[in-house]
């Protein structure tokens, strides 16, 4: 059994689909933050069989959780302060995401125009469909 210590302030992201934690690590830009991060892969889960977890020790204001809603809104977000869970955040599908994924349409203006943010807009909440704001190409499944 692997033991990872408690954190004082930050987030515990639980119920991440097994194997998806590293992708989330990058999409949350955790590689760019100077903070302690524990990536736990393939932990045992009663609910999921196997799951991933991310523990991030940082200021709770530092993370953009909209991105998580886009990646998988079933992830449990525990907000930790003074070593205790102070909040369990409910993730929803963000209306718009900026610079999280890139438009794959070779005919899209984002493929040539420098400095243009890659913006995707939620067009069908039921089917969780996002489309490029510029060319309306459907976002590739993640």
């Amino acid at each position: 059994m692997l033991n990872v210590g408690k954190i004082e302030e930050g987030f515990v992201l639980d119920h991440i689909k097994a194997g998806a934690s590293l992708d989330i690590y990058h999409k949350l830009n955790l590689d760019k933050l100077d903070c302690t991060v524990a990536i736990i892969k393939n932990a045992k889960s009663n609910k999921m069989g196997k799951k991933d977890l991310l523990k991030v020790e940082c200021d709770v204001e530092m993370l953009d959780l909209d991105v998580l809603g886009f990646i998988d809104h079933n992830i449990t977000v525990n907000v930790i302060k003074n070593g205790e869970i102070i909040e369990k955040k409910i993730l929803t599908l963000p209306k718009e995401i900026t610079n999280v994924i890139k438009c794959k349409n070779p005919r899209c203006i984002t493929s040539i125009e420098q400095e243009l943010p890659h913006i995707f807009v939620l067009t069908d909440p039921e089917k969780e469909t996002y489309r490029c704001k510029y060319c309306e190409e459907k976002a590739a499944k993640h």
Partner: protein
Amino acid sequence: MRHLMSPLDFSTDELERLFVLAGDIEKNMPKYAHVCDGKKLATCFYEPSTRTRLSFEAAMLNLGGNVLGFSEASSSSAAKGESVSDTIRVISCYADICAIRHPKEGAPMVAASRSGIPVINAGDGGHQHPTQTLTDLLTIRSLNGTLNNFTIGLCGDLKFGRTVHSLIRALLRYENINFVFISPDELKVPDYITNALDEKNASYKEVTKLEDVIGNLDILYMTRVQRERFFNEEDYIRLKDFYVLTKEKMALAKENMMVLHPLPRVNEISVEVDDDPRAMYFKQAQYGVYVRMALIMTLLGLAPDVLDKEA
């Protein structure tokens, strides 16, 4: 400031106002000869399109305005690597309104977000071509009398044909329209269009043979299989002659069926059909000028209120 990126940018009420204005232009052209005196239209065409560009320029000239611009990317600053955002900021200093055509989808939207003048999307890749749609709507409204209650067949390249996508989405806002999509399997309408049809519970069917359905249509909208939309020449050659409208096929159609085509035509409508009174595609090009005149006046805030006068 208003721009036109998609035909859906205008409500159906606003479109109605535009069409009434275009109808008045048709009847009283000289009345509008000086509405845009001293105004300049920039036509920024990053890919060649003689027809659309000349239609815009004719519209502005008819209104007494002037035109400036470029007709291909190689003769513009884009060839030096200038971004669309920068180009439009500069054009905003030279002109009062801009029509932009660009091979990249979404480029006019980028321009509009940085522009100091109204921007009209004059076609962006395979995405939208709203002024063609306004032309199509005006033609149907003028010749059919209404934009409700008819069966329209769309034939040819329904996958890459942006005029078709724009038209379908625009028609979805009107009532009791049956859509018949006639195309080879390889060129069927994309999923975002069928999704939109499903959402509105619109009646539509997809078929592969024009002969099977032509007798049921009130309007037949033909499209060209565009060489530049194909990644490979072999596919283009195999598919381009699939759906050709001939005199024989016209004999199966209703007596008052209207044939529309965004033009240019290659060989999908035989020239022998041109003399048929149901062939409306050249008339459609004329309506294109009227609707662009109405649009330019509207976006510049110079449109007289013809709707109130009529009432």
